[in-house]
């Protein structure tokens, strides 16, 4: 009994494990409801192709939310970065223009993020307002510059950057999935093992504590939003290159799925605590739901409803099995099963006091 509890507690400590299990459970359900689709590898390859841009946005957003802030402007950055890249290629139509366009797109993301950070850290504009304004403004600028038209860049197919970022490994696996995975791993180390990540954790926990302990809160916030701008621009590049076309509304559908990925992953909206692993699996859950529901031959009108139910269920699951709750829950269940047992009755108050 005791050993079982230790195992449960240990498993509860593995970052993102519950959400990973939810993803597995979801795929099992889809295998049962739509075996023809979900027993083949194609559907998974298709997820690896479509999820990464949203995933990348959600990874950056995890940092922002951990710091107790919010960024609503990343969809505009996805559009602006795609435009800069496509425009460079269209205008100069040369291999070097792809690389320059790539770097310029990231720079534009950094600039927009820096301006966000500056408004928030130096002027004191609440991040929700600053980035909401930025979303409208930069989306507006992009539409204006693009003249509302899309840019076809199918000419980049076969170029080195194209195969490097959105090619197919062994002609099957979309490379952008590996970039998403690599970025997640890198950002995990930044958040959990780097002084910058620790500053983010403490600022999200309590900015005053961070300040009196010598963290430069303003500079860290500016760096945070700048970094998020670059990450969103990278997402825009992956998207634009994958579909070989820039269209002005690209990224506009990313806002809610990316936010949902972060929250169902288990990052707390209160700040001070965030999980990159959770966001990673969260993004794949969000990205798999629609296809799964449709393939299960339920009417397409059900998609949103099912998404809502899954999101709510996962968030509730996160709260129920949060810090230390696993042990309490198993105590509680034992208490329900054999309430007369002295041992379980004695254990209840002890675990409560440990909290």
């Amino acid at each position, binding site marked *: 009994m005791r050993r079982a509890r230790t195992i449960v507690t240990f498993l509860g400590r593995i970052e993102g494990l519950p959400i990973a299990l939810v993803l597995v459970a979801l795929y099992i359900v889809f295998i049962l409801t739509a075996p023809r689709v979900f027993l083949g590898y194609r559907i998974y390859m298709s997820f690896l192709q479509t999820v990464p841009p949203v995933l990348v946005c959600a990874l950056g957003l995890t940092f922002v939310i951990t710091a107790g802030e919010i960024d609503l402007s990343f969809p505009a950055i996805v559009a602006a970065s795609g435009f800069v890249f496509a425009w460079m290629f269209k205008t100069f139509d040369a291999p070097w223009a792809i690389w320059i366009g790539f770097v310029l797109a990231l720079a534009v993301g950094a600039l927009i993020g820096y301006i966000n950070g500056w408004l928030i850290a130096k002027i004191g504009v609440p991040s929700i307002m600053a980035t909401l304004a930025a979303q409208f403004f930069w989306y507006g600028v992009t539409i204006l510059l693009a003249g509302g038209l899309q840019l076809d860049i199918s000419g980049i197919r076969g170029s080195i950057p194209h195969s490097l970022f959105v090619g197919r490994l062994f002609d099957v696996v979309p490379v952008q999935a590996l970039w998403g995975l690599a970025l997640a791993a890198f950002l995990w*180390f930044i958040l959990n*093992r*780097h*002084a*910058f990540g*620790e*500053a983010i*954790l*403490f600022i999200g*926990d*309590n900015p*005053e*504590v*961070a*300040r*009196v*302990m*010598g*963290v430069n809160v303003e500079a860290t916030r500016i760096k945070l939003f700048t970094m998020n701008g670059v990450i969103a621009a990278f997402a825009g590049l992956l998207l634009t290159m994958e579909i070989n076309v820039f269209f002005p509304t690209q990224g506009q559908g990313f806002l809610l799925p990316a936010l949902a990925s972060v929250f169902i992953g288990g990052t707390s909206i209160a700040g*001070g*605590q965030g999980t990159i692993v959770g966001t990673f699996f969260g993004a794949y859950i969000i990205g798999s739901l629609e296809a799964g529901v449709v393939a299960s031959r339920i009417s397409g009108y059900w998609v949103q409803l099912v998404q809502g139910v899954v999101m709510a269920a996962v968030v509730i699951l996160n709260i129920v099995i949060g*810090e230390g709750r696993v042990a309490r829950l198993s105590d509680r269940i034992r208490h329900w099963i054999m309430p007369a047992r002295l041992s379980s009755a004695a254990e209840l108050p002890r675990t409560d006091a*440990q*909290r």
Partner: protein
Amino acid sequence: MTENLAEQYALRMVNIEKYFGRVCALRNISLEVGRNEIVGLIGDNGAGKSTVVKILSGVFPPTSGELYVAGRKVDFNAYSVKRAHEYGIETVYQDKSLGEKQVLWRNFFIGRQVTNQLGFIDVRKEREIANEIMLNMIGFRGRGITVDSKVSKLSGGERQGIAIGRAMYFEAELIVLDEPTVALSLKEVGKVLNFVRQIKAGGKACIYISHNIQDVYEIADRFIILDRGEVVGNLLKGDITREDLDTFLLDYAHGLQDKEEA
């Protein structure tokens, strides 16, 4: 900073003034703290105690005036919390010294992590040192609390102990305690006072800020009394009994009330 050994004061403030916009928070504050002295800083809410603390610990600069740390004049343009730490001034704030959702080992090193050149934290080393501080400096042996516990699991006295242990580890010359016993049970207050005695025994200086005259009288060598941004009393413990100190403070409060009514 090279130390001036002839200097008898750990810290000296000369004519410090602080305005927030047009509101005067501190006026002509001059005070000093000896190298191995515990100074009780007493004053009502809004007397300016926290403002004094924030200036000397580098959170913000004063509007005018001078600050000397171990005899060296502080350049406020280059002064910061980090610099104050380098000068050996550590501050323990009543409720904002620790990140509540963070594990203890992170709390020991926030703001001055053990990192490699790329800024990545040496977690193993930090946990090792944190464990060492907890066992040997503040004696947290066997209470179910480890370096991986979150601060939210600790009692109020334990939190003060962690913050004081952190200050001692980083070899503070002057430890500032801002209301360390607020909202603590008597037993926890006793623990905190013992931590403060260890500061004195270690030959270091301390500024102890409190509302509670009983605590301050028990622990301090000297009392500095602030009222509405000014120093109104500077008394050695030997020169005043606790009853007289009480009377002094009460009279002051009443005297000011009379002035207001007039």
